[in-house]
């Protein structure tokens, strides 16, 4: 064995042989060559592959921050992986629209354009920000830990409720906004 890559196989969806469609309820559905899951406990070997229409599918980005369009896991109701989308851009336009629409809904996250006020009281911080979805206010409990740096200058801010806000590149914020958040970086 030269490489551990031989041990597990990643099944990628073939853009030419996969059909994404919208289910009657408005969710993404998929017909493609996919593994036929049986009962986990009885399965010893890899499930057989078969061209099938599995109905509604779920998506999950493997690297949501760094490559949001690549390595997207396609899952069934119970979170078992059917296959992986190597790159959304390889798919026909119609399919891209369906996949992106669902991803956008799932990873819904307002992008902070500027910070108009940031006050701290007793360890909690109160934010007033301008986002791409209009002005918003939120608060964070442990401010330092609520701000995650995710490579480059991107910041993900999680408020007390678990809602997320994104700053694409803090270095590109205006000076006043940057001054306000600088303390927590």
């Amino acid at each position, binding site marked *: 064995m030269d490489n551990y890559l031989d041990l597990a196989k990643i099944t990628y969806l073939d853009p030419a042989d996969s059909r994404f469609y919208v289910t009657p309820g408005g969710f993404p559905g998929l017909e493609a060559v996919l593994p036929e899951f049986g009962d986990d406990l*009885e399965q010893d070997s890899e499930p057989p592959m078969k061209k099938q229409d599995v109905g509604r599918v779920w998506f999950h980005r493997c690297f949501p921050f760094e490559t949001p369009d690549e390595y997207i896991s396609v899952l069934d109701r119970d979170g078992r992986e059917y296959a992986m989308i190597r790159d959304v851009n390889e798919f026909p336009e119609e399919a891209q629209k369906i996949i992106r629409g669902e991803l956008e809904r*799932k990873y*819904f996250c307002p992008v902070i354009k500027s910070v108009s006020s940031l006050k701290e009281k007793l360890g909690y911080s*109160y934010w007033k920000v301008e986002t791409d979805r209009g002005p918003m206010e939120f608060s964070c409990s442990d401010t*330092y830990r609520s701000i995650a740096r995710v490579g480059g200058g991107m910041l993900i801010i999680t408020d007390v409720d678990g809602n*997320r806000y994104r700053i694409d590149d803090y270095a590109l914020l205006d000076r006043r906004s940057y001054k306000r958040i600088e303390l927590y970086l």
Partner: protein
Amino acid sequence: MKTVFVDKIPSTVIGYFASEGLDPEQALVSLRFDMCESGAFGDCFVMLFPDGFAVAEGYLTFSSAGKRPDGLPRRAEDFHVTGFEKFRLADVGEPKAEQLISTGRVSAEIGGADRVLFNYSSACKHGAAVFCRAVSELKKNGELKESDFADENYEKHVCPKCGRRYPDEELKVCPNCMDKAKLVKRLAKQFVKYKKYIIIMFVAFTLTAALGMVTPYIANEILYDDVLTNPASVAADVGRIVLLMVAVRVGALAVNLVTGAASATVAAKVTYDVKKTIFNTISDLSLGFFTNRQTGGLMTQVNSDSLTLYWFFCDGFPYLVLNVIQLAVVVAVMFTQNLVLALYTFITIPLFFLAFKYLFRIFDKLYAKRYSRRRSFNSLISDVLNGMRVVKSFSREDEEMRRFGAKSKEAADAGFDLENHIARVYPLLYYVLRIGSYVVWAFGGLQVMNAAGGMTYGRLMAFIAYFALIYGPIEQLADVTNWWSDSLNAFQRLFEITDAQPEVREAEEPIIPEEPRGAVEFRNVSFSYVENRKVIDGVSFSVPAGTMLGIVGKTGAGKSTLANLLTRLYDVKEGEVLIDGVNIKKLPFAYLRESVAIVSQETYLFRGSILENIRYARPEATREEVIEAAKTASAHDFIIKMPDGYDTRIGMGLKELSGGEKQRVSIARAILRDPRILILDEATAAMDTQTERGIQRALEKLTRDRTTVVIAHRLSTLRNADRLIALEDGKVAESGTAEELLKQKGVYYKLYKLQAEALKTVGIE
């Protein structure tokens, strides 16, 4: 049927629902959400009726509509509907709240296909959970019980004073209703206990200030003026004057000694008290608090913050009082001696204080920054040192050194930034202050030459000496900003912890079961660590006193969570857990801990000897009892192989035990506890089969008349269980005796077959 859950719904929305032919009065549940169908923010209202529910989406707009009778502006609300739909309960499947990354959506099966009913952001996740629960209840039982929806914890997430939500649910502190003045007031309360010392200190300060005033008088007015005008009388008194000066100095020294001793005592006592309070509060908090925080950060908090407090009481506060008194006295003396000159002197003071106020803000920020950097630096150190094995085995030392270097530099930079500001700002500031003294020289000199206002050379010298006495306090007052802002930050964090309210609380009027036998019952228990992600879903089972229950299931099926619920590390969200027929929420903590002991897969041994660690469960146990417990747990054999036997010191940095050895010590600990209910959560997972067999035999004795809950992957561990339950995705998939389960050919049967096959492949059967 009665209304069971209501969010605040604007009247215009209620009107809208009425206009759609619904009677809002009849709504069982009314909820408000904050997103629209498209996934954009908006306003969405849901009302649940006995036979169905309706969802209205749109936007609320506000406009001014004149004034109210009391003069305040009146707000008119308008609801612009973008979507309205009614659903019949019979057509809709069980709704599910799907938690997305930071928002969620509730969907249900309608006419054979899943579809979204409404969307919500995480702020409304509780409402979504209520909706799903209510609909499924209603479909199942046809009615809703009010008690199921009276979630007292949810109510308490809101500050009773201003109605805002607490930023942290575990720490029920409302920052809006708590200001810094109160903070200081609360600190002052800490002082009250030490009245005696404080009075001593206060007297001492006054004396110091008074003595400080006398010295310039003697040194200047007597020596200069009297010597110049009347040398003969001074020559006769020279001995007395020298004596007076010495006495003043000695007096000042004595007073200083008393002050130092008194303030040190108060500080030590207060720091001790505070540390104790923090630690007690921290231990009282529920486990959820700790999983949400880094231990390194908490450690810094306890240590450095109480140290800051020490400095506050020992250095800061006494000096503050001293300086304020001294300043007041000096100023009073100066004004009575020479009003005009004093006025000139103080020309620069307001300027100084303006600068002072401005600096307060800057330094506040810089100190907070340094603190946060240090905190994250400390977290990194404890992280890396704890994980040193991993660092070394992947030879990542260089990378860790780089990370350490980076963090250390960040911390150093913040420190440098601060010191740099101090170094640049203060000398400038003092220079401004000193301009005042040039003014005194100039005008005072003129006055002496003109002999205006009875000014003499000696008096001018005394005046200048007094002026130096103002520098001191003001300089120190400027220094006060440093520790003042540092201290305030520390106090904030301290009270944050001491004000925290544990999620799991002891009942106010606890009940002790009359006949403690150790019967356990789970009644329809549901639990989730995070809202809308149920880990345990409607689990019911009972373990009669003295029997053994085995729990099997895949990783992540919720087995350990059941143990956490039974020991009340977390509280159930729905349903109840009973011991001897009493809900464990009503049992006193002491009773619960005494009745239930757990040996878990994560074993933790404290720094100390093995003896101390085993005795942790029952400190008064005799040595024989400890050895017996160790023998039962198969720990005796390896313990006596160690040079120091039971006195071997173990723990971080000392002798490290292997995983299996640790488990055996912790089993011995549980055995010594002799609880009525014993939980073994993968307690023997890290042992070889032979040792496990040995322990099994011992446990058989131990568990004979004891209620035991055994959680295990290995089915061999469960062979003595009276009953078994198989968990799957938080639900009880099947239950019964081992034979019954084998016959059912379900989850247990498959597990059994898998493990039997595994043995077959290595040639054993």
